[in-house]
């Protein structure tokens, strides 16, 4: 799918969208509004992934990331503060400090990128994108040397633990509480 001008166009479109929406998430005063912006960002980044040629991952992204996690966040927002509460702005020192840190990090990462020349794949390799979902599946469960079976088992344990933890913590255990 990565073929010349259409891809470039989509890249810039999605790039601008994701940055704008990201700023929305971060600077937004109403929580619900920033949650929605987050959905937007994830959506546009799914598009970017498509531009990169990974349809499966883009699908997962939309399905799990947006569908699962962000929806969960929305529930949380609803349960705790009815979403529309007006969050006061953090004190100036914190915002300045945060800004400095973020830009400093950005500058440093950029300088790293600029100074390293990555071993790029040859020009023509770029065009051909033959995504192979089968290969993902096989690698995910193969137990040879470069297989991911162990992380796979571990991540399932992690998910189970998170599940139980979440229930235990959020359980109402003192009756007098509303």
């Amino acid at each position: 799918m990565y073929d010349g001008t259409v891809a470039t166009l989509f890249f810039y479109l999605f790039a601008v969208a994701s940055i704008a929406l990201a700023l929305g998430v971060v600077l937004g005063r109403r929580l619900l509004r920033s949650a929605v912006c987050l959905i937007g960002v994830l959506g546009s980044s799914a598009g970017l992934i498509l531009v990169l040629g990974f349809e499966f991952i883009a699908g997962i992204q939309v399905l799990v990331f947006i569908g699962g996690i962000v929806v969960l966040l929305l529930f949380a927002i609803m349960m705790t503060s009815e979403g529309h509460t007006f969050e006061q702005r953090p004190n100036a020192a914190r915002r300045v400090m945060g800004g400095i840190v973020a830009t400093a990090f950005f500058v440093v990462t950029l300088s790293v990128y600029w100074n390293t020349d990555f071993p790029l794949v040859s020009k023509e390799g770029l065009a051909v994108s033959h995504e192979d979902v089968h290969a993902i599946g096989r690698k995910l469960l193969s137990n040879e040397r470069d297989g991911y079976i162990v992380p796979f088992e571990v991540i399932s344990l992690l998910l189970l633990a998170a599940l139980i933890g979440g229930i235990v913590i959020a359980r109402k255990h003192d009756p007098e509480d509303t």
Partner: protein
Amino acid sequence: MTGFLFENAWMIPALPLISILLIGLFATGSNARAAGIIGSVAIGTAFLLTCGLGLSYLSSAAAGASAVTWSIEWLRYQDHLVVSMGTLIDPISLLLLFVVTSVSLLVHVYSIGYMAGDEGYSRYFVFLSLFTFSMLGLVLAPNLLQMYVFWELVGVSSFLLIGFYYTLPEAIAASKKAFIVTRFADLFFLAGILVLGFFVHQLVVDPAWGGVSGTADQSAAATQALDFATINSERVLENLKGQAGIFGLDLLTVAMLLVFIGAAGKSAMFPLHVWLPDAMAGPTPVSALIHAATMVVAGVYLVARLFPGFAASGDALDVVAAVGCFTCLFAALIACTQRDIKRVLAFSTLSQIGYMMLALGVASAEHPAGLGAAMFHLFTHAFFKALLFLGAGSVIHAVHSNDVADLGGLRKKMPLTHATFLIATIAIAGVPPLAGFFSKDEILGAALDGEHRLVFGVGLFVAALTAFYMFRLYILTFLGGHKSDGAAKAHESPPIMTIPLVVLGVMSVCGGWIAVSQFVLPGVELHAHLLVMGLSVAAAVVGIGAAFWLYGGQSNRAQTMAESMGGIYRLVQNKFYIDEVYLLVTKMIFRFIAAPAAWFDRHVVDAAMNLSATVVRWLGARLNVLQTGQVQTYGIWMINGTILVLLFLWLVQR
């Protein structure tokens, strides 16, 4: 100089030491009475040993020979600076041995009576034996450091004896004062030892020097820097005189002056005399032994022992003469005005020691007659002054008061004490044929020989003063009416106290006839000075006449004379307020040095240490601000940290 007595001369000082141990073990508590007997027996045998030693010395040894008959290595500082404990036998030390052992024996016997019934009885005799031990050790010392060791021990035992009645505040103050003043003087003595030790050692060590006798014989290796033999040898003295000391004086004079200050302190010469009058707070036999006959003459003995050094340095001798002469006059003036019987005698001792120092001062290498005269006067003075003190003691014992005002009319009440006291008074006044006359005459003669006109004049005047204040004391104490009921009820002291008085009386009478100065200076021809004899007798008569004229009859001529002099009389009576000046100086030293030192330590040095603690705590508090408890700040600092590390790595790598 060989023979049993010489090799074991160390037994003489050892006997009192043994008596200390015996008393300490057996004569405490119930059978305390034995202490007196043990002490007296020990010092008695020591006295006999000394007589034996003296006789065998006179018969066998060449006149004036001096040798170290016994010594063991005591303290090894460095090669050529090895200090040993030993016994040096020569005329002066024999003379002193005889004086110390005889007077000490008599004082021991006298004390058995005087101190009877006192609850610190055995403690008294322990201290007395300790004193005698250290005095004998001092007399026999062959080197300067052993003399310093026993010098300090004498100081301590005098401190213990003065402070014997330790419940009386003035006795404590007097003992502390005595010890600290003498200690101050000993500081200079020690400085003198350091100077002599160093420069003589420097000389002895360098091979080119060639030993005491100029020839590098085997004795060179054995010469020790601080031995008297080494110090007094001409080659050492020349060398020392050649080197420059400080304040423009040559090294020898500086060393001799330092040592003289130590001697002046112990013999209570002018600036350091303040402790002797207060030392009368101790028991009277103690004053008799220590503050009349033995300890106070230690200074004179030291100067005599280092006489070649003093003679070689010349101006050191002039200082000795000056100090001696001034003290002699100064003390005699004060003695005329004192009311306490023991203080009069104390100042009279000061004056007589001034005489001895004066005699030493006028002597010189060419005609050392002064040295002989000083030793002769020391010999005679020991006896009649001890007699005066013991007589005063028996008077105080009977009347229980020191003040002349409530004595008087004791002639009939205490005949024996009166007789012996009168003999001693005549002796000290310098009336022939008694002892005082001969020795004082020799001193004045020596002064004339050495063309010291002024010193001779002062000496003559003081002779008159001495006669005056002694007879003033005699009249006020023994003649006239009973001035207090105590005096009325007085009765003669028990025989154990009067026998020593009689013995001392005999010695005071015939002491003068012994040719002591001839014994001390064998080679030197001594001629009598008829003119001087006449003048001194005249001075004595004038003094006695004045005393009888002023205090003789019932008239209060003395009273009127005192008022007429007005302020001067009170000034002299208060000892020219020197005590008060010293008190002020010491107070100031303590207030302006000791107090700030203590304050400085507590508030500055200590505070500095505490300051470092508070600084650390303050720093901790400042860092505490960072721990706000909010997760986000931690996040920020974490990222900052990573960025800084990256930057640093990047810089280093470039």
